[in-house]
């Protein structure tokens, strides 16, 4: 069996569900049929009578002053309806997730390669493309500020945001920083307690989310002076909050509906085409559709922060960690995006799932003229994991210990404090997860007599018949938080309606949750079935008619919006039972809904839901707020900052062609505690998908940026794993319930993306003996030609 589920000894409660399609089952996804028929309406598929196509002119320079913009030739082109610059913006000109520092269209200067300067609406995408080319921009090109040294010396190299500029917040080119001190910190006295010390510098390249569905949407001007926007996003309400002020209209006049989303992975947290399409629709009075081509997509969304990291670990001779020190420098690029929260994660999670009595940490995000970086799956925890897990392997080697045993010796568990002082108050089976992946049987060794060359590094290129191939095995474990942190109340709203349709009880679930492929809508239907004892559940389209569902990110949607659906359904259930009490005078306290009936657990069926409900519909809305957190102290990093923690362990087996520097991952095993698998099929799919993105970061994925310019904005040059690059991924699901979470569940999506990368690099290191302090590992790192 490639997938196994291991249940915890303590189950929170026996969850009663009369339906195999309730929670814990794996019913088929409600959008699956449309998706396989090609009939599911993605944001790029939208069409409207009389629709125009929008397109942006983007800067070829990472840093320049704009001396003039001449749109006259573009406007003359037949079929062009509007050409707009920042001067045409009716409302506020800036937006941003955390700091409103980004102009909707460049004002007098550009700060990164690809920044939008002007936008065009035309009757055909080719007309729009030609019009964009006819816009004349005169630039004064400046030296881009791109290295850490340049960023930290603004007196010499300049400011990305000048101190006097709008929204500059007085920290020079540092967007955000977070320090942390735990125990005695790291001093000479503390260092003296260690028998063995390892120090290292590590680097992580800039990874792209590379979702397949390009940024796209359709803005339709409404008769009330407002706007209807159909868009692929991760958070409808925060889009509305940022777009409406730019259009100069009240939020309630901007109505958003989720269009089909072709993947997200953090890349749709920030706005892309939303404001531009709405501005053009507002100006022309016509519906405007924008669809990015792949190259524009690379410029149109933020990426994972590239990082330069210093780590130092001290341990006793028997392998107990004494102290850990780290400095993490994340390049946030031109605009803040989610950098402050990414820094908070990096600082608080950056020493891994280990008990370390003395800790020091500093994490900073720079402003630079490189592409903006923000949210990507793993969010600040990914880069650090490569650093601390590499350190664990080096420490084990130094001590002559088994790398898994060293990790287990120092692994945190329930009741242990994080370096932030927050005590982990639910299961943290770090050592056990490592043991599970270690105990998996290894794949058979390379059999040179029965080789299929397609399974070797180089695959279809027929580059080896087994010569020069060496195998290695590596392990890693990682930690990620679930939900928004540091005092943010990222609540979710759900509306549940129960009524009789065609003689059957039917539940309708309405939320603003962005279904981006993760299967949240499947889970919502499962929760409604379980709580209301019905089979038929319909999912209302996600829109801003209902309250916010927060973002589809931070592994939070099943926890937060799933929780809101549970509470709304429970409220509906309570209202229905109350109706029965009033009508029939029931006095039982053990009444539940199961199999379409209202049932007394001791006394049996009381009445059918259909008979009790009659013509009435019960329609209730509830919000789900997680337990409160607090911001980390700026200097010490102390504070109850995170809602929940999640852990994943991996084992990677690789074959390396040491002559050509090619790597084939042979197998990538994962073990993860998910609390409760509400939909095991989806949970496994999340873990396997997360592992594969981690594989990409380990051996191939990087946006190459030279002097601020992006060199590989295409799927020809930015490589993501194909099915040939991806190995079997056996998964072990551990179910140890978290008493604080709905159904005991634990967020799933990100932990494997955090943890899997270092296991692959460790395996390559074991195979080759090369240090490998930078990811992605490239052929030239392995052949010594760099």
């Amino acid at each position, binding site marked *: 069996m*490639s997938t196994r589920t291991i249940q915890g000894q303590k189950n929170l409660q026996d969850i009663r569900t009369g339906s195999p399609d309730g929670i814990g089952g*794996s019913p*088929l*996804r409600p*959008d*699956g*049929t449309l*998706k*396989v*028929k*090609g*009939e*599911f309406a*993605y944001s*790029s*598929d939208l*069409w409207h009578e009389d629709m125009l196509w929008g397109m942006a002119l983007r800067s070829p320079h990472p840093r320049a002053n704009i001396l003039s913009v001449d749109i006259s030739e573009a406007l003359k082109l037949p079929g062009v309806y509007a050409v707009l610059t920042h001067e045409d913006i009716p409302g506020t000109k800036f937006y941003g997730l955390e700091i409103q520092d980004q102009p909707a269209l460049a004002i007098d200067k550009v700060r990164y390669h690809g920044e939008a300067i002007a936008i065009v609406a035309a009757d*055909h995408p*080719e007309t729009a493309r030609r019009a964009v080319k006819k816009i004349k921009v005169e630039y004064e090109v400046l030296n881009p500020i791109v290295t850490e040294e340049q960023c930290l010396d603004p007196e010499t190299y300049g400011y990305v945001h000048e101190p006097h500029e709008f929204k500059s917040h007085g920290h020079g080119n540092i967007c955000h920083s977070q320090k942390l001190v735990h125990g005695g910190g790291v001093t000479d006295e503390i260092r003296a307690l260690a028998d063995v010390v390892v120090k290292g510098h590590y680097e992580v390249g800039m990874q792209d*989310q*590379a*979702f*397949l*569905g*390009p940024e796209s949407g359709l803005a339709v001007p409404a008769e009330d002076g407002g706007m209807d926007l159909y868009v692929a996003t991760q958070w409808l309400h925060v889009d509305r909050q940022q777009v409406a002020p730019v259009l100069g209209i009240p939020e309630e006049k901007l109505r958003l509906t989720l269009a*089909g*989303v*072709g*993947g*997200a992975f953090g890349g749709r947290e920030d706005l892309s085409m939303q404001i531009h399409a709405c501005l053009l629709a507002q100006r022309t009075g016509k519906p405007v559709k924008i669809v990015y*081509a*792949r190259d524009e997509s690379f410029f149109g969304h933020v990426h994972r922060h590239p990082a330069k990291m210093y780590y130092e670990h001290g341990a006793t001779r028997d392998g107990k960690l004494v102290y850990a020190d780290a400095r993490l420098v994340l390049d946030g690029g031109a605009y803040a995006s989610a950098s402050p929260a990414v820094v908070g994660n990096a600082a608080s999670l950056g020493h891994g799932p280990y008990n370390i009595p003395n800790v020091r940490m500093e994490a900073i995000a720079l402003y630079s003229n490189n592409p903006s970086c923000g949210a990507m799956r793993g969010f600040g925890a990914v880069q650090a994991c490569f650093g601390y897990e590499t350190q664990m392997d080096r420490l084990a080697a130094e001590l002559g210990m088994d790398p898994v045993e060293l990790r287990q010796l120092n692994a945190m568990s329930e009741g242990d404090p994080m370096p932030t002082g927050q005590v982990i108050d639910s299961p943290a089976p770090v050592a056990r997860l490592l043991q599970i992946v270690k105990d998996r049987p290894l794949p058979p060794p390379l059999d040179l007599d029965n080789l299929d060359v*397609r*399974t070797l590094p180089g*695959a279809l290129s027929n580059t080896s018949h087994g010569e020069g191939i060496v195998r290695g095995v590596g392990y890693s474990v990682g930690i990620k938080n679930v939900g928004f942190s540091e005092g943010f109340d990222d609540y979710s709203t759900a509306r549940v309606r129960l009524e009789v349709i065609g003689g059957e009880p039917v539940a309708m679930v309405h939320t603003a949750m962005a279904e*981006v*492929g*993760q*299967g949240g809508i499947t889970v919502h239907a499962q929760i409604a079935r379980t709580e209301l004892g019905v089979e038929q559940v319909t999912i209302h389209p996600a829109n801003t008619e209902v309250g916010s569902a927060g973002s589809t990110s931070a592994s939070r949607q099943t926890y937060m919006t799933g929780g809101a659906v549970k509470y709304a359904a429970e409220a509906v259930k309570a209202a229905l039972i109350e109706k029965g009490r009033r009508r029939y005078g029931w006095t039982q306290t053990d009444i539940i809904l199961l199999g379409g009936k209202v049932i007394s657990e001791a006394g049996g069926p009381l009445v059918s839901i259909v008979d009790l409900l009659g013509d009435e519909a019960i329609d209730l809305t509830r919000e789900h707020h997680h337990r409160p957190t607090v911001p980390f102290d700026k200097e010490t990093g102390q504070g109850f900052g995170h809602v929940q923690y999640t852990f994943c362990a991996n084992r990677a087996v690789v074959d390396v062609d040491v002559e050509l520097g090619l790597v084939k991952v042979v197998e990538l095993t994962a073990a993860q505690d998910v609390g409760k698998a509400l939909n095991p*099929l*989806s949970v*496994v*799919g999340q873990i*396997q*998908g*997360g*592992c*594969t*993105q981690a594989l990409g970061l380990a051996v191939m994925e990087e946006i190459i940026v030279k002097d601020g310019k992006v060199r590989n904005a*295409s*799927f*020809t040059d930015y490589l*993501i*794993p*194909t*099915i*040939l690059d*991806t190995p*079997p*991924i056996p998964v072990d699901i551990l179910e140890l319930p978290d008493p604080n979470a709905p159904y005991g569940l634990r967020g799933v999506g990100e932990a494997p993306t955090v943890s899997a990368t270092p296991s692959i690099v460790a395996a390559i290191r074991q195979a080759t003996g090369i240090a490998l302090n930078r990811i992605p590992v490239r052929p030239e790192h392995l052949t010594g030609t760099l």
Partner: protein
Amino acid sequence: MRVTFTANGKPVEADDVWEGESLLYVLRERVGLPGSKNACEQGECGSCTVYLDGTPVCSCLVAAGQVQDREVRTVEGLDENGELGLVQQAFIDAGAVQCGFCTPGLLVQTDALLEQDAQPSDTDIREALSGNLCRCTGYEKIMDAVRLASARKCQKAGASE
């Protein structure tokens, strides 16, 4: 220009086609068949894969004018007499669909693979699908889906013998 061709067994006609338009654009924007997807539009991702005269091609790399009088079959034409086709059903059942943007191309490519070889090995499957990128699944459930479709196809062939 005007382009006439057969799409999923029906004659279609597109007027005012600009010479630079791809078959993908004509399918999606002019003849109401948006099922084929536009993820890279340079032949790297396979999301736009369709049959052209029975051979799977990236429709983004085919100029619209090249399909004059030819036969195109898209994901919208993979059904079997109005019911979900065997490959389509297997992708749903195996959990191979997440965001689904790669799915139309994978379905056509898998259909073509199983037409050639109803019982491909795992390595054969990986080779055949290596031109189709998926960012969500890690491909494991896609492997499961192809194996399932293969098994069902063989079972069906066995039953009808």
